[in-house]
Structures are given as structure tokens and as C-alpha cells.
């Protein structure tokens, strides 16, 4: 079976499973929206007091924690028996790429809904909203690439949730620093040509992460 077809089938399987147990997507969304509400109460409705850079920083921290939470479960549902089955019918490349793609879709939906909720409660000082949305999607893509393989590593240990956080923080912090800076520039409505350098760097890191996961997953998979 060609790789693309395998990826498509695995992705469809993930979506069907997601649709059957709806509480998973709902749990992720409630987590993010709950966090937005906590921020709202913490600042007690005085969203006008927030400087744009604080607004941006708080939003990215919320996104980071909810993405961690969402991505951590990407391998927890897979039992050993099912992995044995995959071993016979698919290639490891298809499994990791479909998981990354699925996480990307999940994180994008989560991020966009979160952005709407955050705008509703905390206001929106962004001046270049299309660019900001593009950076959010780019951020989801990069985070999903980084977090999927780490979720796979963490799933092999006993304390996977704790390890997930410990292992992913140092990897995600550099990405987050870049994303914070570039989104701050979009927030201030700077000319788009200023942003391209950082966007290219982020995309480059994303490509490297996808490539390295693609090369490493076959070894992770072999139990």
C-alpha cells in the first residue's frame, strides 16, 4: 500500500475514534477555555490593563499547556496489541506522520477556538489579525511536530504525564521564544517583511523535527 494511502487511512481511523468518543476533544477544549476563564478572573475583567505583550505571553502559555495536554494522549489510547497489529499492516513512517497530522488538526482547531474565547474575554489588541492567525496555525504545526514524538517516548514509561512535561519543556521553550517574538511583531502590526526571517526559521525547525521524528520513530516503535 502506498505511503499516502496508509497515512490517509490511519488519519481517518483517528478521526473516527475521536468522533466516537467525543469527550476527548471536548475535554481539550474545556481545559483551554477553563484556563482562559481563570485568566479572566485573575485579572478580574480588567483586560484593558493588560499591555499587548502580556496579553500575548499569557495566551501562548495557555496554548502551550493545553497543547501538551492534548498531545500527551496521542499514544496513550494505543494498546500494545494494537501496535502489534499495525506492525503487520503499516509502516512506522505512516504511523508517525498520521499522528503528527492528526495532532496538527487537533491543535489548530483548539487554538482557533481558544483564540475566539480569549478575544471574547480578554479583548484583542492585535493589529494584523490575519498574520496573527497564520502564526497561530504555524505554531500549532510546530508544536505538534515537537510534541508527537515526545508523547511517543513518554508513553513508554510509567509516569508518562510527568515525563511528558519534563521532556518537552526544554524542546518547546526555544520554539515558544521564537513564536512569542514573531507573534508580538504581528500584534504590533509591523510590516510583514520584518516577520519572514523568523517565520522561515520556525518552518525550518519544524521541517527538521518532522524529519528527525520520521527517522527515529521506527526505533521507538520496536518494543
Amino acid at each position: 500500500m502506498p505511503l499516502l494511502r496508509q497515512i490517509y487511512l490511519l488519519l481517518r481511523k483517528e478521526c473516527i475514534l475521536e468522533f466516537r468518543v467525543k469527550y476527548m476533544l471536548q475535554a481539550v477544549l474545556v481545559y483551554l477555555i477553563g484556563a482562559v476563564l481563570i485568566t479572566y478572573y485573575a485579572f478580574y475583567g480588567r483586560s484593558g490593563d493588560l499591555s499587548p505583550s502580556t496579553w500575548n505571553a499569557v495566551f501562548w502559555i495557555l496554548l502551550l499547556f493545553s497543547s501538551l495536554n492534548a498531545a500527551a494522549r496521542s499514544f496513550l489510547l494505543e494498546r500494545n496489541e494494537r501496535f502489534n497489529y499495525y506492525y503487520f499492516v503499516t509502516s512506522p513512517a505512516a504511523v508517525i506522520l498520521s499522528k503528527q497530522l492528526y495532532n496538527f488538526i487537533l491543535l489548530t482547531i483548539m487554538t482557533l477556538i481558544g483564540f475566539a474565547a480569549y478575544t471574547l474575554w480578554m479583548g484583542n489588541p492585535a493589529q494584523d489579525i490575519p498574520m496573527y492567525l497564520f502564526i497561530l496555525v504555524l505554531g500549532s504545526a510546530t508544536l505538534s511536530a515537537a510534541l508527537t514524538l515526545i508523547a511517543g517516548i513518554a508513553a513508554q514509561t510509567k509516569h508518562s504525564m510527568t515525563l511528558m512535561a519534563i521532556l518537552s519543556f526544554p524542546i518547546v521553550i526555544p520554539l515558544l521564544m521564537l513564536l512569542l517574538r514573531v507573534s508580538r511583531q504581528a500584534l504590533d502590526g509591523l510590516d510583514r517583511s520584518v516577520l519572514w526571517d523568523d517565520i522561515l526559521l520556525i518552518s525550518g525547525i519544524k521541517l527538521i523535527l518532522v524529519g528527525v521524528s520520521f527517522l527515529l520513530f521506527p526505533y521507538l516503535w520496536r518494543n
Partner: protein
Amino acid sequence: MFQPLFRHSSPFAWWKLLSFVLLLYACVMGFLGNVPRLAILNETIRNLYFHVPMWFSMTLFLFVSVLYSIAYLRNPSLRNDTISYSFAVSGMWFGILGILTGMLWAKFTWGTWWTKDPKLNAAAIGLLMYVAYMILRNAVEDLDKSARIASIYNIFAFPIFIALIYIMPRLTDSLHPGNGGNPGFNTYDRDREMNLIFYSSIIGFMLLGVWMTTLYIRLQEWKNKKDLYTKEPVTHESSLGN
């Protein structure tokens, strides 16, 4: 790559003596030699001989560690994993020394132990990656599994580490010498004598680090051998994490 070095366990192997001589030269001349008078830096420029070699050695050791992680994935032998782990430990120690020498320098030049300079923070986050690597190793009891997933994490983290240490600080302004118009350690600022001391210090510290690592590897191998005979074998149930 370093296999011929490991076989020589004599303390008088040529490269160990070379390391001693080079470091002796670098230490004596580093403190006594002439240095150019540059603004801001003044005498603290001598820290170049001790601070910068730490980062070069750290990068080399972490790179060797990644190479042995790749070797482990291709050929899972306990020896490859031990070498990879030992080099990661050495790299971490050199990184910590790099941060400490940098902090000492910063106290005398900038007047504070720590600033929000991108290079400092990148180094701290980079070390955090290797702390996470150590935690991951200890979190799994089964030796093979621990070695396998730690190797995977090691390889996965390395490109980000390099981007963090070498690429990202160059994109922002920094107070660090060599950035943002501060007098730097580039070739124009160094005279011939400084270059000689600087390069011998780099090579000396690298050889010293390899020497320390070979000792650590031998220690780890004895420990593994002892565990093999004394410890209870890890049963399948106790390592069942998933």
C-alpha cells in the same frame, strides 16, 4: 571514532601528556601573558582562555554522544549506550563550567551574576534538555528500553540544542562580547600570542575531557558488570510501563 583512544588506558599515553602540557602552558601564559587593552573587557579578556574552550568542548562531547546514540540504535550494544551516556555527562559538566566561568566574568564586567542576555538563557535551557535526558534514563528500569528511548531523545533534542545555542542568539542583540558592537573575540582583536594560548587551551581542555570520559566509561562498565552478577534480573512485569 574514539575507539583507539579507549584502548590506551595508560596514564602516560601521548595524548594525555599532550593535554597536560597544553593546559599547563595555557594556565601559566593565560595569567601571565600580554593581552591587548580593549574597552570594557580590559584584563577580563583572559577569561577567553577558560570560558570559550568549555563551550567548544561541550559541543564536541554532546556531538560524540549523539553519534554513539545513533550507533546504539543501529547496533544495540550496552557499550555504545555507555559511551553515549558518559559523553553526555561530560558535555553537561563542561556546560556547567562554561556557565560558571561566564557568570564570574559577568560579575566583574557587567556587575551582575545573571542578566537576561539571550546567550545566557539559551545556555540554561540547553542544559535543561540534558537534565531531562538524565531523568528519562532513570525513569525506566529496563536497561535496553532505557538506553533505546534515551538515545532517541538525545538525537531528537540535539538539532534544537544547536539551533538554540548557535543560531538563535545571533538573531537578537546581545551584550555578549562579539555581539551588538561590543568588542569581541574575533580574529582581528587577538594577536598571535593570544591565538596560540587560546588554541592550546581549546585542544588541552578537549583532550582532558576525553580523558575524564574514558575513565567514567570504564567505571560505568564495571558497574554494569557488577549489576549483571548481583542484581535481580528485571522481570517483564516490573518494566511494564505501558
